[in-house]
């Protein structure tokens, strides 16, 4: 039982609602109202612009590379951490969390320092005609780095809780290691995995800082959706900026809805999200 009096309770609830409205609901409403301010046709015309289309394509491409990579990595890492004992395990867990604790700008700068024209491998890369920074590989690398922990963080507690008995049962029944994984481990983690992939994807498409450092901001070539939004906004093209931004907002809303749905239906088999 709480001991607060009715007015105090009302005040606290009002504060919470106000806070939510100002910081969460209002911005979402603003994005859509600004985007649609001059009508639906102007809104849609934004997406006919080749630069906007290029940004959308690039974002989809980057996510299509980064998300599967981090899914595979996340499963492998959480499998290793949850099912085996080895030296340096806690170090590995800490390393997985690194992208959470580091500023995305630094994440981008690391790759510039390594692969940029003045970087450690710059001269060698230039000599061989390979461009990483200010091109697709750099954007992918930065995105992979930033979205590294999402799947693994989701799966580690889940797998630790489940132990290895199911896999061992499959092995004693004659299944190969890979068969045991596909028929027991994967079904056991499927909802947690989907959840992790959703979060990973949302971040991969929305990442600004790290990508901004390595992209070079070439509209129509190396601009992802968030970078295109910034470019349009700085060019005082507010309707277009908010129109493109509305795509990301929609993605966020869909992710949120899917996440809530998953939690409602499969709450028991999802681990508590552990985010830094």
């Amino acid at each position, binding site marked *: 039982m709480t001991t607060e009096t009715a007015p105090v309770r009302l005040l606290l609830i009002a504060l919470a609602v106000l806070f939510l409205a100002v910081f969460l609901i209002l911005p979402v409403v603003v994005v859509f109202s600004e985007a649609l301010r001059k009508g639906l046709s102007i809104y849609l015309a934004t997406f006919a612009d080749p630069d906007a289309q290029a940004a959308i394509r690039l974002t989809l491409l980057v996510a299509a590379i980064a998300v599967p990579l981090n899914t595979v990595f996340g499963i492998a890492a959480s499998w290793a951490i949850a099912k085996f004992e080895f030296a340096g395990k806690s170090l590995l867990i800490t390393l997985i969390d690194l992208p959470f604790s580091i500023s995305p700008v630094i994440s981008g700068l690391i790759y510039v320092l390594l692969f940029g024209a003045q970087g450690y491998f710059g001269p060698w890369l230039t000599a061989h005609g390979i461009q990483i920074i200010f091109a697709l590989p750099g954007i992918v690398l930065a995105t992979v780095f930033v979205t590294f922990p999402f799947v693994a963080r989701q799966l580690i507690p889940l797998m630790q809780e489940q132990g290895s008995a*199911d896999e061992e*049962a499959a092995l004693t029944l004659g299944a190969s290691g890979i068969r045991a994984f596909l028929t027991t481990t994967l*079904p056991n983690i499927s909802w947690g995995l989907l959840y992790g992939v959703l979060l990973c994807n949302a971040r991969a498409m929305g990442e600004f800082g790290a990508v901004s450092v390595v992209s070079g901001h070439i509209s129509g070539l190396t601009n992802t959706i968030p970078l295109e939004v910034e470019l349009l906004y700085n060019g005082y093209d507010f309707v277009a900026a908010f129109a493109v931004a509305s795509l990301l907002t929609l993605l966020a809303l869909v992710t949120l809805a899917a996440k809530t749905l998953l939690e409602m239906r499969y709450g028991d088999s999802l681990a508590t999200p552990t985010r830094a």
Partner: protein
Amino acid sequence: MRIRLTDIAKDFGRTGALRGATLDIADGELMALLGPSGSGKTTLLRVIAGLEIPKTGSVLFDDCEATAIPVQRRRIGFVFQNYALFKHMSAADNIAYGLKVLPRAERPSSALIRRRVQELLELVQLSDLGKRYPRQLSGGQQQRVALARALAVKPRVLLLDEPFGALDAKVRKDLRRWLRELHNRIGRTTVFVTHDQEEALELADRVAILNQGKVEQVGKPDEIYDNPATAFVMSFVGDTTSIPVEFDGIRFWHDGHPVDGTFGAAHDGRCRLYVRPRDIAVGTLTKDKLPGTIINVHRTAAGRRAAIAVGNAKDLIEAEIDITASLTVGAQVGLSFGKGKVFAE
């Protein structure tokens, strides 16, 4: 199949390590591995299964070296402590699993698999529940599905880890009897792990007692109970009470009083006498009895038990006393001993 384990050692840096365990399991035998927690009994079972690779020692299956054979090719059936049923598969699919993962050349047709699954469901008396998922089954039913799943691959040996541990007392008794009948019917070598001595003595042909990673004694339940080889076995299996005694070459003494009885082989000097509480007779004090003072009397399920201080009251002994006997706390009594065992201290 006969199993021969020789000098198995396995160290994890946690409990349950093995330190040179040796054990022979005869073909068709129902063997219990009994021991306290951390004695290594589950580890030994997992070594037989191939789920743990021993650091040293060898595992022979019918005189063939099996130590290096991977778990998938050992042809064993393993029932896990919490059954480890596949939650996303029906009971029938769980049972069919071992057949479905066979290489294509050995795999029966799906009609044959279905028939075999139905046979197994009947064997474990669950014919109508094949479509149920594990969460829709009771503990005892899950246990039997796990058993049917293990039997589906026609294993050469059936291994069960604490098979009745998670069940309530009534179900446990029924399943125990049922497992005994099943074993008699299919006659397959079966090894099960338990920490429950009653379960081991009632169910097994032979019992292996494990302690601190070693097999202390292997024998028929009668041998284990009536003729324990070590002090540990004696005190772990069945009720035991003990007092320090001294042997002077002729008879045993406790604190200046003679202690007589059938104690088997004698040890010189200081040793310890282990007796079952029911092998101690409590009566009036005479010259040839060990004097004692009743400290307390309490009821057990079947009778009454007295804690008696003997000698100079440093040592306590537990004795079974008659329900009708009128013994009060503080009374002076004399103890005489029937059967007992003396082990070095």
